[in-house]
């Protein structure tokens, strides 16, 4: 059996791929393998307070209707590209016609563990955290990236007292630049989050009645709960020896075909025709956070941990599988979003935090625009959806900064 598609990771990329194959008319076998036993769910909402009802990417009845096989609660443990076989944690081996690896990343392990100490990546993590937060009390968040900042915001809403600790003096500035980053910090201050910035956690000790968090300046914070949000890391150990090129994720060509799988670069492409269920013929692809796609010109790319990029990569892979003569590459403007203290942050395109952007303001709405001397290349919107939309279109179309300003703030442009 060589015509079927096996997808490792029922992530946003994995599920989007399975759906796209079906909506494109592919009738071959499609299996989705995931280590979690949960029906596939969406991860971004987990830090944003919407937990009561997780957003399901695919339910079992829907999978059945679409003819997608869900293999949940099993982990991929090894890959033999020559034999086109995947080893699973239940001891079985399954063959594939085409394999797509979309396992995402995992939360960087906390250097501290114990009761009340959390990381946040999976639905199980989120349920444990929110059960704790519902009790109120003092929360210390270690790491003020977007997830840490969102947890701080959610916890304040739930009635906790929150302290946010980060080694950087302006954590959001690392992503959006100093002036926009400072603006985001004021949201935390106004919401009542205690900021301990430029501070490193030196020790975390369990007490009889909670947790003590000692900072590098000697301050000791008392906490009932601690969230360690210090980033994510790729987990590709199971692919060791597979021949795939594993340097910061899975290295791929501009169409998501993993380098080092036996038929990449040999000019052998699938003989599949839509509907016949013969695709890819032994090809291995990777999508989403775990994948490092080359740029369109073949230059080495970088991993993109963006939800919308994962969706688009999945669509490209589906199209490439079904029509190998015309392999697809992503073209959408990359987008990251965050909800903090009832406001939205949108990061669009290529933002250079080291360069101060052009700022456009309208009340407390702000749009920051980066350009290459003519065309808009990147933008950040704080609470300004129409501004973000105009910037996103401008980045896609290669429009000038003045065109965006004219759209969102005609009075300013006329000055």
């Amino acid at each position, binding site marked *: 059996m060589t015509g079927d598609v096996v997808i490792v990771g029922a992530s946003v990329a994995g599920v989007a791929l399975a759906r796209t194959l079906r909506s494109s008319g592919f009738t071959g076998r499609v299996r989705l393998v995931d280590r979690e036993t949960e029906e596939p769910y969406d991860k971004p909402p987990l830090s944003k307070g919407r937990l009561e009802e997780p957003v399901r990417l695919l339910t079992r009845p829907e999978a059945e209707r679409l003819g997608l096989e869900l293999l949940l609660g099993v982990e991929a443990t090894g890959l033999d590209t020559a034999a086109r076989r995947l080893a699973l944690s239940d001891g079985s081996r399954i063959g594939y016609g085409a394999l797509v690896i979309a396992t995402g990343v995992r939360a960087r392990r906390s250097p501290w563990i114990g009761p009340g100490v959390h990381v946040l990546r999976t639905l199980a993590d989120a349920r444990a955290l929110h059960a704790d937060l519902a009790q109120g009390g003092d929360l210390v968040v270690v790491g003020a990236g977007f997830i840490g900042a969102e947890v701080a915001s959610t916890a304040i809403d739930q009635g906790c007292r929150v302290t946010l600790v980060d080694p950087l003096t302006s954590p959001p500035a690392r992503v959006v630049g100093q002036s926009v980053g400072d603006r985001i910090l004021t949201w935390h201050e106004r919401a009542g989050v205690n900021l301990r910035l430029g501070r490193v956690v030196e020790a975390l000790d369990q007490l009889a009645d909670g947790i003590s968090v000692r900072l590098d300046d000697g301050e000791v914070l008392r906490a009932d709960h601690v969230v360690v949000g210090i980033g994510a890391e790729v987990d590709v150990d199971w692919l060791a020896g597979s021949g795939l090129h594993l340097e910061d994720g899975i290295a791929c060509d501009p169409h998501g075909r993993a380098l080092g799988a036996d038929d990449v670069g040999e000019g052998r492409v699938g003989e599949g025709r839509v509907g016949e269920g013969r695709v890819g013929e032994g090809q291995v692809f990777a999508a989403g956070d775990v994948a490092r796609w080359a740029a369109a010109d073949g230059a080495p790319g970088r991993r993109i941990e963006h939800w919308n990029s994962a969706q688009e990569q999945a669509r490209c892979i589906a199209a490439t599988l079904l029509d190998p003569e015309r392999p697809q590459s992503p073209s959408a403007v990359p987008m990251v979003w965050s909800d903090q203290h009832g406001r939205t942050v949108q990061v669009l395109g290529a933002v250079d935090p080291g360069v101060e952007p052009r700022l456009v303001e309208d009340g407390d709405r702000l749009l920051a625009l980066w350009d290459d001397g003519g065309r808009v290349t990147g933008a950040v919107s704080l609470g300004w*959806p129409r501004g973000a939309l105009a910037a996103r279109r401008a980045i896609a179309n290669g429009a000038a900064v003045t065109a965006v300003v004219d759209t969102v703030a005609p009075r300013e442009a006329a000055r």
Partner: protein
Amino acid sequence: MPILKADAAACQGYASCVIAADDYFDIDDDGLVVLLSTEVPEADRERVDRAARACPAAALRLEGA
């Protein structure tokens, strides 16, 4: 015919739907989604379904798709 539905309380104004299908979606000045049409003919079903699934806030659904 598939019917398009929006959850106004969930909408955050990210406008990914507008980028994907601006003949079905727009946002107003406050960033709230505006459905330009709720009945989706078969020819547009896949494109509009994809646009709905592009919503980061899971605020959109194409029912009967």
